[in-house]
């Protein structure tokens, strides 16, 4: 039972990360109808900027043993702002010229942007000023601990189970502060997005553009601006996910490492399973994929964890091609 609950805790934490990334995929797809392959690279950039910013700040503070909690907040905001800016630049210079081009071209461009970001990330890092290094580099780095990570002292809650047999170890389930902060910040961000999309005028404009771009433009909605804002929002969510990911898994791989691509791909699968273009579906899909992955890995076979994800994807697409919460598109002559 302890095992089951521990897997559940991990699945919820990982699921909220997937959901955050999936939101970016789904928002872009909803509006521009193309798969933004560069999204996972923005997520990676978010993680690496978090690394750079937190190392820099902690060095300035004289490397305290237990860093103050505000550092995490500052790093998160920095990562979100810089990735949001990058999202704006990408949309403006790579995707906007292709607004009227066939979708395949936009897709190839997205792959191109993704390659560009990955390989720019492989460049050797350079010292700018004062110990502030450019992020990225071909060597893996270790994220400094911003939140205390000792499972004994800093867990929010630890449940103990009596051992089944006298000679077995007593089992326990640890809900660490990191897991709680991941789920907490993810939920806050999702709630903000929900308000933005469904309760504000801006969100109404986004939904209108997503529904029919031309009609929305006729209604006086500044389509280009809305698309930009959508991109920036998606990029910021990805950056937040990158930050939270680097908290949970502090060993940061080089930006072009395939583990990042796979993570992005799973988040994308989550968006598709939930119904791409549907904001709530992305969240549902994120948790679903994480549950299947974590439980499958724990109870069936760890090595096949990626197979479960893609098998679920194919299954869902075959049964309900528009995803769990998606609305089917009718083909008209």
């Amino acid at each position, binding site marked *: 039972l302890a095992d089951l609950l521990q897997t559940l805790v991990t699945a919820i934490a990982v699921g909220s990360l997937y959901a955050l990334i999936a939101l970016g995929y789904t928002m872009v797809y909803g509006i521009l*109808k*193309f*798969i933004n392959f560069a999204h996972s690279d923005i997520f990676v950039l978010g993680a690496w900027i978090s690394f750079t910013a937190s190392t820099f700040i902690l060095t300035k503070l004289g490397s305290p043993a237990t860093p103050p909690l505000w550092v995490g907040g500052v790093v998160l905001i920095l990562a979100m702002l810089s990735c949001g800016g990058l999202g704006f630049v990408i949309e403006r210079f*790579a995707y906007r*010229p*292709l607004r009227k*081009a*066939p*979708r*395949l*071209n*936009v*897709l*190839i*461009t997205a*792959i*191109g*942007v993704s*390659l*560009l970001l*990955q*390989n*720019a990330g*492989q*460049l*050797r890092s350079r010292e700018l000023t004062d110990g502030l290094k450019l992020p990225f580099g071909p060597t893996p780095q270790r994220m400094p601990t911003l939140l205390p990570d000792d499972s004994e002292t800093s867990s929010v809650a630890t449940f103990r189970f009596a051992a089944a047999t006298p000679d077995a170890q007593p089992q326990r389930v640890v809900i660490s502060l990191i897991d709680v902060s991941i789920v907490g910040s993810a939920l806050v961000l999702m709630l903000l997005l929900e308000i933005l999309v469904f309760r504000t005028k801006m969100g109404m404009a986004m939904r209108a553009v997503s529904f029919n771009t031309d009609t929305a433009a006729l209604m006086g909605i500044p389509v280009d601006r809305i698309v930009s804002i959508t991109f920036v929002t998606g990029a910021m969510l990805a950056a937040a996910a990158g930050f939270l990911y680097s908290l949970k898994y502090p060993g940061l791989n080089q930006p072009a490492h*395939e583990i990042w*691509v796979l993570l992005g*791909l799973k988040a*994308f*699968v989550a968006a*598709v399973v939930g119904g*791409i273009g549907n904001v709530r579906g992305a969240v549902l899909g994120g948790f679903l994929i994480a549950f299947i992955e974590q439980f499958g890995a724990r109870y069936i076979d760890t*090595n*096949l964890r*990626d*197979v479960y994800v*893609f*098998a679920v*994807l*194919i299954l869902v*697409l*075959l049964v309900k*091609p528009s995803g769990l919460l998606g609305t089917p598109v009718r*083909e008209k*002559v």
Partner: protein
Amino acid sequence: VTPLSALAKDHRPAGAWWRAALPLPLILAVPLLMHFAIGPWAGEFPEKLMIDVGVAIILAVSLNIVNGFTGQFSIGHAGFMTVGGYVAASVTYYGSLLIWGVATRRPEFLGAGEWLLAGGCIAGALAAAGLGYVVGLPSLRLRGDYLAIVTLGFGEIIRVLLQQTQPQLYDLSELTEATASQFVPPPLGGALGFTSIPRYASLFWVYLFAMLTLVAAVRLKISSSGRAFLSIREDEIAARAMGVDITKYKVRGFVLAAFFAGIAGGLFAHSGVILAPKDAGFQRSFEVVIMVVLGGMGSISGAALAAIILTILPELLRDFQEYRLIIYAGMLIAMMIVRPQGLFGVHEIWDFFGRRARRPAAASGVRK
């Protein structure tokens, strides 16, 4: 009622049979020229590059059947290629072990080892084609992006499954003493990859298969199947109204593309590389998709030319070292913005010259 194909046979122009045989000298001449003249003249490293170019041509031209002719969007092509490669490699590697006791025989021109390679490539191609059928049948009910995602997922599943295979058997005694449990799952090297595959893929074989693929693709494009493919690309509903069995032709396109991808995989495996599960990943599939789009969707000569350019370009950019792939990606983005229809659009290179330029090209439909 007389079937249309029989009617067509009656109306075949005189001399059609020798025109059909016309490409044969070309199919033989180009590989021989590459093998005996250009290869030795160019030296060892360019020769390796030329082999890569040949494999890339087969991959791009075959993916062009699905992506370019039928207008479907597959990004799992590397999956088919890798399956073909693994099948071909196990045929030649274990075959060589069984026949000669060693897997690293020095290949001689048209020697027994090279015929083993040809057999292995065909076996790999058939395996890939079978897989193409299995993948194609259910997933072709999906459209556009969803199909792309399924093929992507398929490639990833192949990759993960190949990682679960068992360690390779390294010599004859190991092979003969192996128990049944060592063959399920098959001993293909697992995550480390299939190593010490004999280097049977010479310039001759690579370009023989490349020429065969090219000629097959050109002839396919002007055949009735090819017309059906193109009609599906232009407008699925109109094609159905004209009596084109859409599912049948989509699956046919998938199987054909997978077949040639399997051949490419077989040649790739025998060109002196370690065949690894990550070759089935989507990064390699993307490379091929980029070639097809850059060449122009549906243009065979365009796909081949793009395959040549995109394989050589990274080598030419080697002087820029760490900026190499950044420049490559930048050029890709610029190309998509400046010339979205690719190098040749829907045309072929010969549409631009001579007497054929006046004739309406087979594929010069207006794209939406």
